[in-house]
């Protein structure tokens, strides 16, 4: 196990003007699990391939532990990788595919057998050990590829879309078992995924990438609560963050509805007020789960009134869509919420849940501060 450091790592493909990966810096602790998250073409896979040694590094350095590995061949980097395309050896049985890396490390055969058995049980592929890869399903091949990487003793583990082919019920279970395994063995791990659910479930920290640029590298909690910019704010979170155009004025934020009328106000702290001159146009963001709703409760001065458009009961929680003076808002509430379409609902948006973004650059303003001082009134 080791640390993994990327310092200003860039990639420019021959003949391409744009940087596929642009000056990415990321320091991953020994034993840490991180996710590289983004949509297709964001640079996450190129980054992973540079770490693995499958792509050259145009600029910058990659360190595994104290060693710069830019010019080290893939097999000498002491990195284990599970490929999105599985890349299994067709003439070898599943058992032999999984054991392959250990054979190369000259592990004793009794130990190999024990470890293959244990990892196969964890990934629910015990019944497939004597089969050949072409005769098993894509989802099963994916688990074999994972087993082959996880069984090894490596400095760093790279998992490329490791669970994309699994049915949802099995995915939930394997995610948890794999996370337990990675932590118990103190494995430094990079998971590449386009699926934020997978990233949030597995990773200690998530690197959100877009257009080759690292947008934010933070814990799932911080990506939710303190997104660095509008891209992260709207990319992370389900349901997505509520975003409203707004104007700063007289120490308050006036949130605008679709007709550009003032729908409601958010009071600003003094620091925020001084940073935002009067009349500055901004975007205001509020996570759906930070909005508090009270069905049939008292409507006090500190409450907004929402008119419910839909209430989606999802078993363990509700997602409620409502209008506040022409603003469409989505909130997440407990499973017992009673809110019929057309009914009035008291709504509280806690000041500390309000995030502010620059309209032009998209950057968060006062990312680490609480921008508002009290409840929305």
């Amino acid at each position, binding site marked *: 196990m080791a640390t993994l450091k990327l310092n200003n790592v860039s990639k420019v493909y021959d003949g391409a003007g744009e940087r596929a990966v642009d000056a990415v810096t990321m320091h991953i602790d020994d034993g840490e699990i991180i996710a590289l998250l983004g949509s297709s073409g964001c640079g996450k896979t190129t980054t992973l391939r540079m770490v693995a040694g499958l792509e050259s590094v145009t600029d910058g350095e990659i360190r595994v532990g104290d060693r710069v590995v830019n010019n080290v061949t893939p097999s000498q980097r002491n990195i284990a990788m599970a490929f999105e395309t599985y890349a299994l050896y067709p003439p070898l049985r599943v058992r032999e595919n999984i054991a392959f890396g250990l054979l190369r490390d000259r592990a004793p055969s009794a130990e190999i057998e024990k470890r293959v058995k244990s990892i196969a049980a964890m990934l629910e592929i015990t019944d497939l050990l004597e089969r050949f890869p072409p005769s098993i399903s894509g989802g099963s091949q994916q688990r074999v590829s994972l087993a082959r990487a996880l069984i090894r003793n490596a400095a760093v583990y790279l998992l490329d879309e490791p669970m994309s082919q699994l*049915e*949802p*019920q099995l995915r*939930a*279970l394997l*995610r*948890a*078992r794999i*996370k*337990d395994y990675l*932590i*118990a063995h103190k494995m430094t791990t990079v998971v590449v995924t386009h699926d934020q*659910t997978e990233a*949030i*479930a*597995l990773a*200690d920290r998530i690197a959100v990438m877009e257009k080759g640029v690292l947008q934010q590298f933070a814990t*799932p*909690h911080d990506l*939710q609560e303190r997104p660095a910019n509008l891209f992260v704010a*709207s990319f992370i*979170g*389900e*349901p*997505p963050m509520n975003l409203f155009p707004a104007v700063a004025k007289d120490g308050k934020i006036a949130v605008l509805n679709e007709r550009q009328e003032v729908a409601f106000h958010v009071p600003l702290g003094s620091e925020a007020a001084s940073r935002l001159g009067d009349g500055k146009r901004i975007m205001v963001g509020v*996570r759906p*789960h930070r909005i508090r709703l009270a069905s049939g409760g008292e409507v006090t001065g500190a409450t907004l009134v929402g008119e419910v*458009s*839909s209430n*989606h*009961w*999802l*078993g*363990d*929680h509700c*997602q409620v*869509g409502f209008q506040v003076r022409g603003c*469409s808002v*989505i909130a*997440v509430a*407990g*499973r017992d919420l009673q809110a019929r379409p057309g009914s009035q609902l008291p709504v509280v948006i806690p000041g500390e849940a309000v995030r502010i973004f620059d309209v032009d650059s998209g950057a968060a303003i006062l990312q680490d501060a609480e921008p508002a001082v009290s409840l929305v009134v």
Partner: protein
Amino acid sequence: MAFLEITGLSKSFKQHEVIRDLSVAIEKGEFLVIFGPSGCGKTVLLRLIAGMMQPDAGDIVIDGRSVVDLNPENRDIGMAFQNYALYPHMTAYENIASPLRSRHVPEAEVGTRVHDTARMLRIDHVLDHLPKALSQGQKQRTALARSLVGRPSVVLLDDPLRNVDAKIRYEMRFELPRVLRRYEATVIYVTQDYKEAMALGDRVAVLVDGAFRQVAHPHEVYDAPGTTRIARLFGDPPINLVPVQPVTAAGGVEMNVAGGTVRLPADSAAVAGRDCTFGIRSEDIWVSLEPTEGLPVTLEAITPVNNRLVMLLRGDEGTELFASCPQGSALDHLRGRHKAWATMDLARAHFFDHGDGVRI
């Protein structure tokens, strides 16, 4: 008689029976979601209703009239597909207008109806664009507008939000029911996302292996699933299912589960002495890091899903259980394994026959 009645519908391809003796009755204005795993027959069923395929047996009656011998365009049905299926050489306007054109609706009325529908779906500003110039969400809205513009009495929607990003999906989930209510359409909506099924459906019809296994309100499908198979299709993480043998003891019913003994609620006599599968959803198990009366377990991993913590627990004898709770507790920042205690809300427990998986 219901507005739309399907009775005894069957369809085979070669030896494979994809739809088996399927029946359902749908009320006027109802929003019925057909939900099932991939390959369960959803798309074939929709094509049979639309008239793009002929059934081997059975009848489809809309508003008192059998439609199985009618061409698709005479069935008074609008349809939108997962892949939008827009005509690439036509503007959004012409795409939306196409069902009206084929019925020779007067030009003035075409204009009024296309604009009304487009305004409703908030695409009136892009009507002169070709599909390639439309965003993903606008394409989806254009396809929906085309399915609604003829004011059909039945609208079939084949997984229309499958290929759109999360933001558009949520917008449409909240907007679609309102739009469809305005059109007073009877809706059949196909999806393989259980959350979408529960969010949108007045009723959810669970299609497994070509037949409806349960047709009920979302609350009922989730809180009283008819079989273990249906129970596992709803919920993330999936419901916990554990084989148990409840016994009568000390004037009540007890069972061993996950290495401990628990007492069942007073009305549990029906399960005593039977080989059962015990089902409990993750949100009905509470986890404490301080000793409680609950089962001693190992908390092995925390895998958050959106804003909920999902916890994998292991009982002393090896049984794995999922528990979950909202974020915002001492559990939020835990890492690695921890000793914990789990309490089950047995009033919300489910019991199924261990043999056939049917709810007891």
